[in-house]
């Protein structure tokens, strides 16, 4: 009866695997191996996460006191715009699908690679190009329109905004190609015997995410094209004086951007659905319900974007429709959260770091989800929107949800990716810093937001000082937690003990091959004969 403590003997270091398959930078830069592309995405995403995080710290320091603390209004506006744009377009959208998804999905399906390996590499280079083009805007005076680029302000902003728009346009294609690749991979390359009801929930989540990526991102592409033309040649489609409608831009923008927040959260839910059963040593509760609610969320994602326009001058009828549709998003999300908690019942819980992050995810995502219900109700939204309440809500859902699951996922698949184990003790401590720091940073923002502090304010009323200072204090703890995590994960690369094929004794296919996995993932094409969560062998008396 295998428990997690006993490590199966590590693969001899001399073994042939994807890391030493080709030598030198060129073999990495021109690789078609989904695992290497996943690792390249991982390092790029983490670098941008560091940049975005430092910008966030700069914002928190500035808001330590009302008035000018370290920068003035123009710089502050550029900093929060860059923080928003980097975190949304370059970190949190590709984070789980492109890095962990690229690495793990083919292995979970028992396939040798994604359907279109060259397209996969092209998607990485398109992502890098988009990022570089977006960041060249800094040479042209930067962008201070906020990551939402609302017209007419963005249509009259400096030339820098055109670079960010083109950058986001290009990066959007990387997201489309990843989505396309995953859909065809899941359709065509599943292992033999892996019917739809034997697909791990991480694959279901990535499948739903890919559908959103493929259906929503093109509308962002056309929106950005129209905005660039509006900015450069004044075609008047979003300009009231020429007959256009600034609110139409908000419709176009949010038709993509709301499904985009589900591109961020669905893979995170997939990771949690993988981690909790493994560390409870029992099947996931309500597998079908969770799989179908991924699709429920993916469909509802396209029906609810209007709740971003409740106070923007939208008609009363539209407010009614969008508010009614938005409250129903809470139902499939609720099903998932209740199912995860129910999985713990009568389990055998191992408090390893991935499990800690999963439990942390549940705590933060529950707060994020519940405050989402506040914002779904029109009358409550009127007072709370565009205040720090909304900032707290979406950080709870995005950082508390997606990035906690991303960190948990990195820890969960760290042995498979690197073949080594990270230091468990420092992992637990770092988690405590992260969870305490996060709550201290963002919970005060709910209160200060309800009291009426607007968002994107460089200078605020002195009444809000204390809560802002608490929040800044918390952000330092959060920074410490993440930096410490990066440190011990980096140290683990060299000094971590060898992990062996399946340190967590998971049943999904990626753990049934050596780690780090060989170039073609599996020596022999695996045949799936059972459900990936059938932890029954070790449970029967």
């Amino acid at each position, binding site marked *: 009866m295998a428990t997690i403590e006993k490590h199966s003997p590590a693969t001899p270091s001399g073994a042939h695997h994807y890391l030493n398959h080709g030598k030198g930078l060129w073999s990495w830069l021109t690789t078609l191996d989904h695992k290497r592309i996943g690792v390249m995405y991982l390092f790029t995403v983490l670098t941008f996460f560091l940049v975005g995080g430092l910008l966030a710290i700069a914002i928190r320091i500035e808001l330590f006191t009302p008035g*000018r*603390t370290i920068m*003035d*209004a*123009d*710089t502050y*506006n550029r900093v929060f715009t860059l923080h928003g744009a980097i975190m949304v377009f370059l970190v949190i959208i590709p984070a789980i699908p492109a890095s962990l998804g690229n690495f793990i999905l083919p292995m979970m399906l028992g396939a040798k690679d994604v359907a279109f390996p060259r397209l996969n590499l092209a998607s990485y280079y398109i992502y890098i190009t988009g990022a570089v083009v977006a960041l060249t805007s800094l040479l042209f005076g930067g962008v201070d*329109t906020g990551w939402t680029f*609302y017209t*007419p*302000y963005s249509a009259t902003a400096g030339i820098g905004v055109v670079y960010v728009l083109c950058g986001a346009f290009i990066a959007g294609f990387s997201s489309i190609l990843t989505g396309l690749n995953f859909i065809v991979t899941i359709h065509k390359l599943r292992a033999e015997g892996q019917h739809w009801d034997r697909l791990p929930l991480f694959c279901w989540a990535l499948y739903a995410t890919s559908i959103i990526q493929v259906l929503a991102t093109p509308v962002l592409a056309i929106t950005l094209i129209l905005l660039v033309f509006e900015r450069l040649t004044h075609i008047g489609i979003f300009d009231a*004086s020429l007959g256009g409608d*600034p609110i139409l831009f908000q419709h176009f923008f949010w038709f993509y951007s709301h499904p985009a927040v589900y591109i961020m959260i669905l893979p995170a839910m997939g990771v949690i659905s993988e981690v909790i059963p493994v560390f409870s*040593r*029992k*099947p996931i*509760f*309500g597998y079908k319900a969770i799989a179908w609610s991924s699709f429920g969320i993916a469909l509802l994602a396209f029906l609810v974007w209007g709740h971003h326009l409740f*106070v*923007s*001058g939208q008609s009363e009828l539209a*407010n*009614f429709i969008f*508010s009614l549709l938005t*409250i129903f998003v809470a139902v499939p999300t609720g*099903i998932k*959260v209740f199912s995860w908690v*129910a999985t*713990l*019942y*009568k389990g055998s*819980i191992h*408090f390893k770091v991935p499990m800690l992050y999963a*439990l942390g995810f*549940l705590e933060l995502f*529950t*707060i994020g989800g*519940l*405050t989402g219900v506040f914002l779904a*109700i*029109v*009358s*409550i939204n*009127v*007072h709370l929107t*565009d*205040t720090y309440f909304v900032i707290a809500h979406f950080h709870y859902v995005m950082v508390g949800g997606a990035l906690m699951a991303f960190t948990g996922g990195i820890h969960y698949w760290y042995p498979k990716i690197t073949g080594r184990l990270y230091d468990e003790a420092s992992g637990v401590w770092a988690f405590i810093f992260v969870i305490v720091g996060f709550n201290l940073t963002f919970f005060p923002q709910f*209160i200060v937001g*309800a*009291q*009426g502090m607007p*968002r*994107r304010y460089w*200078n*605020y*009323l*002195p*009444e809000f*000082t204390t809560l802002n200072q608490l929040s800044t204090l918390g952000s330092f703890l959060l920074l410490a937690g993440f930096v410490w995590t990066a440190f011990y994960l980096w140290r683990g690369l060299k000094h971590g003990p060898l992990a062996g094929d399946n340190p967590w004794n998971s049943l999904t296919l990626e753990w049934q091959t050596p780690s780090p996995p060989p170039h073609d993932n599996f020596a022999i094409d695996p045949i799936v004969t059972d459900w990936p969560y059938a932890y029954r062998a070790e*449970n029967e008396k």
Partner: protein
Amino acid sequence: MFISNVHASGFQSSAVETSATLPLQGTQIAAQWDQLYLFLVGLSAFFFVLVVGGMIYLAFRYRKSHSPRATYITHHHGLEALWTAIPTVLLVGIFIWGWSVYTKMIQAPGDAMEVRVVARKWNWQFQYSDGRVTLGELFVPVDKPVKLIMSSEDVIHSMFIPNFRLKQDVVPGMYTTIWFEPTITGKHQIFCTEYCGTGHSEMLAKVIVLTDEQWKTWWMGKKISATIPFAGIGGIAMPQVQASASGGAVKLSGLALEGKALFQTKTCTTCHSDDGSPKIGPSLKGVFGHKVELADGTSVQADENYLRESIENPTAKIVKGFQPIMPTFKGMMSETEMNAVISYIKSLK
């Protein structure tokens, strides 16, 4: 470096007491709004305890050392149906309650006093039915419905009055409206909550709710003697913007400093720059005391009278190369404000 600022501004405990979580209830609807809000807070607290408390309990109760072997459970249709139906019913109930509050928030009574609001980059202008125009201060009578008809001159702004729980974007090229019936006299803080550029966080204004007789005196055009206190947040003014990053850090004296703020709020910055950069109107840096060449070829010494005349009757003397489109600011500025602006222009060496 930020430590010094902390001492400078200090941890002021806010003079005016604000309730723990919500701003003042400035209207009846704000009270009804708070009821729904507090109900939602309670409901969320309950579900938080249920989910996260349950999670912690289960994780602790079934920890590995305490239950080495898990039980093989895959699903339970009854339970799953329950936690789908109950949230749906609760949500629809909340939606209906929320919508009923919303309909009250948007349907203005027929006899509401209409005030025309123009939002522009970084100030609010209110125009009453008799043509009177005030900048940054909206005077309204207490216990009487007021309807604001708003439009923007440049980008999207947003009128947010926390004490009335009201927010509505102000969009160029179309009209949006909000209405309220204030029940508490005093100054209520107005914020701009749609990002609109550098001065977004300084684009503040105040709803000044007057008692009936104060309102009559004001409507007849007289000054109100009594000083009107702040109701709820906004009591302590935001720290004044020191020299902006671009301008030199010139130490401005009292009147000129006040003039600098007025230069912003009276929208001079819309057409005139104070740092020499070209805008719609001539830059006012280094104008005072020098010769100014006029459109009709003559030139004149720029002294106080020239500045005053250009403010009150701008088309009298047009600077060479500029359009005669400056509107008259006569009546828009009191005497002291005029002096403050002129002394600020004089300080622009």
